[in-house]
Structure formats: structure tokens, C-alpha cells
């Protein structure tokens, strides 16, 4: 039971971050049907900028919480600018081009950003300074740290803020109108280009915060960190129904939980020694070594994809998505 609660806590933490990153994918997709493959790289840049700021300020006597806030205050604008530049330079000229063309520019951008980061911050993993002292609390035999609590609370706040923005403000209304039909939205007086740029910028700001959270949670930042994180978050977005904002949140949390529980239990579930009665060879093997595990926790990364495929096979539009039109 302890393991169960522990994995739920770990899963929620990871899932909350996936959800925030997934929002960036889903908002952009919802509005211009583009998979922004470079979004993971924005997360990475956010973490790296924060790393530099923290490394500069650590040991100067500035209170740790303030240091983190300053780091965020630097990383967020940098990422927002980056998001704007990406849209302006690489995606806007290709609006109305064949669907795969912006996918390739996104890949190009991703390569550029990664190697740019490599140039500045080296190819080695950087130890992210743990300036806030980690404190652990016990819940029913499981441990939850203050970092995890902060991450979960922050993610919930950001998601609530985004939901308010999208469903309660004029900007949000314009965004939803553009997503529905850019031509008609334009006729109604919505500055479509500005709205699309705003979508990128908001997604990038969320990504910056996510980057800082991931780096301080795992204690490591590296120029390749955006790749797998982006991939998982993208899975989360599709899982929930791409283009659907509540879907991305749900998808992220589901993905995080499935991954954590899967990694926690698969070893036990596929331990053939649990059924050693069925063959003499197996019984002998288990007498020598009490575990004969088919799939261990090193298969953690597989879960995200297997769940994704299973869900899509039975619900092709994702968990909360609407049925896509026949002409994709």
C-alpha cells in the first residue's frame, strides 16, 4: 500500500508537469493544427536560463525563494520571446502551405535550439542547484517533499489561470473563435495573426515554468532534456484529445499516473516466480534466484506509448476530444 501511495504521489507530480507542457502543444494545435515539435526545446531553454540565473545568484545571500522567483522572471520572458520568434519566423510564412512543411521547419527549429543550447551550456548534464532545502512529509507511509507539493500546486494554479484566460476573457474568446474558423474570426474583427502569436507566447510561458519545475525536481538540466519530455507531453495532449484544453490536463495526469504505477508494479506482475508451479524448469530457476522478472521498471517509457495506442484504438478522438472531420 505504501508503494501504491508513493507511486500516486510521484505520478501526480510528473503528470502535472506533463499537463502544463501538453497545454502548449494542444493550444497551438487547436488554433492552427500544427504539431509544434520544438515546444519541448522551449521547456529546455527555460530550465537552462533559470540554471544560469540561479548559479549566478546562489551564495550571494539572496533568499532562496527570491532567487527562484528571479530565475522564473528571467526564464519566462526569454521563452515568451522565443515562442513569438518561432511563430513569426518559421510558422507564419508557412500558413496555408502543405501540412507537412511546418512539421519540417519545427524539426529544424528543434535542432537549432538544441545545438544552440549545447554551445552555451555544454553537452554535459548540469547539476541544477538545490537552493531550497528539501523537506519530506509522511502520508500513510509514503513520502511527499515540499518540492513535489509546490510543483503540484503551481501546476493546478497555472491550469486554472489558463482556463480562466481561455474561457472568461476577450483574448480567450478570440482564441476560441480563431480555432473554430480563422476566416470568420477575422471577419468578426479578430486580429488572427496577433491571436496566434499570443497562443504561442502563452504556451511558451507555461513551458518555461515547467522547465524550471522539472529541472529542480530531478536536479538535472541538459540540452537534450526537452526531447523525451516534449514527446511525453505530446502523448498526453493526444491522449486527452489534441486541441482540447481540459483534455491536455487530464491526459497529462493520466499519463503520469500510469507511468508511475506501471514502473512500480510491472516487475512484480511479470515475475514468473509467482507461477513457478507450472513447470519444473521454472521452479528450479526460481529456487536459485527468487526473481525471474520478464519486464522490469526499465520499461517505464513504454507505458506512455502503450496506453496511448490502446486509448486511441478504442477512442480515436482521444479521451475528451471531439470527432475529427473526415478530411484531416
Amino acid at each position, binding site marked *: 500500500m505504501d508503494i501504491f501511495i508513493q507511486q500516486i504521489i510521484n505520478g501526480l507530480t510528473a503528470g502535472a508537469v506533463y499537463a502544463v507542457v501538453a497545454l502548449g502543444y494542444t493550444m497551438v*494545435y487547436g488554433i492552427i*493544427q500544427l*504539431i509544434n515539435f520544438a515546444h519541448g526545446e522551449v521547456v529546455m531553454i527555460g530550465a537552462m536560463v533559470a540554471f544560469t540565473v540561479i548559479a549566478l545568484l546562489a551564495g550571494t545571500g539572496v533568499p532562496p525563494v527570491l532567487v527562484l522567483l528571479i530565475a522564473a522572471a528571467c526564464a519566462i520572458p526569454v521563452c515568451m520571446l522565443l515562442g513569438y520568434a518561432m511563430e513569426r*519566423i*518559421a510558422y507564419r*510564412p*508557412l*500558413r*496555408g*502551405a*502543405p*501540412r*507537412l*512543411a*511546418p*512539421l*519540417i*521547419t519545427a*524539426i*529544424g*527549429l*528543434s*535542432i*537549432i535550439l*538544441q*545545438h*544552440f543550447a*549545447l*554551445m552555451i551550456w555544454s553537452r554535459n548534464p548540469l547539476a541544477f542547484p538545490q537552493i531550497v532545502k528539501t523537506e519530506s512529509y509522511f502520508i500513510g507511509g509514503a513520502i511527499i517533499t515540499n518540492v513535489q507539493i509546490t510543483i503540484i500546486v503551481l501546476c493546478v494554479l497555472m491550469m486554472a489561470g489558463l482556463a480562466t484566460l481561455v474561457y472568461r476573457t476577450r483574448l480567450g474568446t478570440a482564441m476560441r473563435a480563431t480555432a473554430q474558423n*480563422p*476566416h470568420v474570426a477575422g471577419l468578426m474583427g479578430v486580429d488572427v495573426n496577433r491571436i496566434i502569436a499570443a497562443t504561442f507566447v502563452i504556451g511558451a510561458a507555461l513551458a518555461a515554468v515547467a522547465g524550471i519545475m522539472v529541472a529542480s525536481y530531478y536536479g538535472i538540466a541538459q540540452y537534450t532534456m526537452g*526531447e523525451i519530455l516534449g*514527446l511525453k507531453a*505530446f*502523448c498526453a495532449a*493526444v491522449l486527452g484529445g*489534441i486541441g482540447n484544453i481540459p483534455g491536455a490536463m487530464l491526459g497529462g495526469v493520466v499519463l503520469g499516473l500510469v507511468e508511475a504505477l506501471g514502473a512500480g508494479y510491472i516487475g512484480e506482475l511479470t515475475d514468473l516466480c509467482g507461477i513457478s508451479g507450472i513447470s519444473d524448469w521454472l521452479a528450479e530457476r526460481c529456487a536459485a534466484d527468487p526473481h*525471474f*522478472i*520478464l*519486464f*522490469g521498471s*526499465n*520499461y517505464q*517509457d*513504454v507505458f*506512455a*506509448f*502503450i496506453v*496511448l*495506442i490502446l486509448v*486511441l*484504438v478504442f477512442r*480515436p*478522438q*482521444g479521451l475528451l476530444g471531439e470527432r*475529427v472531420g*473526415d*478530411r*484531416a
Partner: protein
Amino acid sequence: MTGGLTGRLGTKPAAWAGLALVALVLAALPFFLAAQFGTTWVRISNLAILFILLALGLNIVVGFAGLLDLGYIAFYAVGAYAYALLASPHFGIHLPFWVILPIGAAVAAIFGILLGAPTLKLRGDYLAIVTLGFGEIIRIFLNNLSRPVNITNGPQGIARIDPFRIGGFDFSTSERLFGLPFSGPIKYYYLLLIVLVVVIVVNLRLQNSRIGRAWEAVREDEIAARAMGIDTTRIKLLAFAMGASFGGVAGGMFAAIQGFISPESFKLVESIMVLAMVVLGGMGNIWGVILGAVLLSFVPEMLRFGVDPAQQALFGRTLIEPEVIRMLIFGFALVLIMILRPGGLWPSAVRRRELAARNGEGGR
């Protein structure tokens, strides 16, 4: 219109002369490269041909049938591992290559159908992410299937894979033939070239065949295609299976040529690279795809050798790692080419018409 390459060329002597010239250049190329720049460049050419094979295989799925596949490298991996397991000391099995390559192609095709069957009702980007996940699943399994029973040898990969042998003729050793020094890579080059020509002819014939036209119909409008009596599920599965089997064959040859494979060679980035070749060159146009594959294989290698000397000459020392500059230039090139030519460098005729029509509308 007898269809295919020969049909169209038959009427134009100039085209035949051009073809003969290209054949001559390609035939002389490895010796020229080996003499001028060293054997490394022959190896690079071999890899380039493998990538052309991959790009042509993916073009069937993406370009002809319009199904976006982001995990294509998985089939390459399946072919490579099929070859490695059946022709290396790892299991002590040493089957000849003409037995394994068809097995590899068949296994890859089965994987293609396994992937396709449950997912074909997905559309566009949903299909893309599922194929991407599939590719990653295959790689993670290859990486971890070393315990409890060692099947793939995990991240260490499989080494000492048998080269191609026909009777006493070994493709990996150097020897003098017809008075010329044939090194291992040069022998493989000619073998690959023959395979490539076969694959190109198959592709050209496919494109104008009943199946090829059915693919095009499905790509343009699936509902209309179904209404015209095309079994869309079967035709899409066929695209997946065929594309996959091409990948499987290329993978088998890759394993034999390299003599060593590991999951490192089959990462997502490789799938994306092959897709970039297809899109950059011009989706659906066989010659465009070949152009894309040649460019994306050679240009990064040329940069690898050219960037550092240029830097030394300009600044007198190495300011930035050559590898980084190489990738930066590559990234910028991808972005620029797509912005300047959204249909690819050499778009297919259908796509050119579409682009022209779109511009004619006056844009948005």
C-alpha cells in the same frame, strides 16, 4: 502510355543518353571517391544509398498513400535485428543472406500490418503519434530484451555480424577484380546500387499501377475513394506492409555492411531524418525523394569535413565545436528550404498544381 520508365524514355533518345551518362558517373563514383578522398566517402555513399532506400520506402506510406508515419525507422530496426540474430555468433546461427533478407522483409511487413491494422481508422496527426510511439516501443524493447533471456544483447548491441557471401565471394574483403582494387565498401556500393535500381523501377511501376492510383485516390479523398469501390483498409495496409518491407531489406543490408548494430542507430531522430528527406525532396515524387535523401546524407558529412578548416582559416583556431556548427547549419537549412519551397525541392506534378492553384486564389 505503356507506363513506367522505359515506356516514356523509349521515345526520347536524349533521355536515354542522359541515363547512360548518369549510370557511367555512378559506376565510376566509388573509385573516384576512394582515390580522391579516401574510403570513408565510399562508406558515406553506401549509407546514403541505404537512406535513399529508406526514404523511398517511407515515400510509399507518406507520399503515395498520405499516411504520416513518424516511426518508420522501427522497420529498419526489425530488418537489421532479423539479419543480426540469424547471421552472427550471438545465437551461433549463420544463415546466408539471400535466405535472411526475404525473412527480414517479411517480418518487417508483418510488423507493418500489426501497426497498421488497429490504427488505420485514426486520422492525420493521431496516426502520426501512434506510429511515433510504435517506433519508440520497438527501440525500448531492443534496448531491454537482454534480460532475463538475452535476445537482443541490450544497449551493447550485436557485433561480428556476417557480411554478405555468395559462394566464395565475400563482400567485406578487398581483392583485385578485372585489374581494379575492389575494397569491401566498393563491393557493397555496387550491390547497393543494383538494389537501388531495382527499388526505383519497382516504385515507378507501382506509382502508375492500379495500386498506386488507389493510394493516390485514398490520399486525396478517402470517402470518394471508398465510393469508387476501393477497399481503403486493404489498400492502406498494403502501403504500410510494402513500406515496411523496403525498410526491412535496407535494415538487413545495414547490419551486414556495418557488422555491428545497436539500438542507438534506431532512435526517433532517424525516423525524423528520413521523413525530412521525403518532405524536403518533394513528397510523392520519386526523383524528389532521392534528391532529398542524397542532400541530407551528404551535406552534413561535407560540413563535417569542411567546417573546421573554414573556421581555422577565418579565426585561426576552433571557436565552436564543428559538430555544433554542422547541426546548426543543418537546422537553418531545413527551415529555410521549407519556407522558400513549401512543396519540397522537387514536388510531384499533382502537388505543383495544388500549390499553383492555392497561390492563384490570392492567398489568405
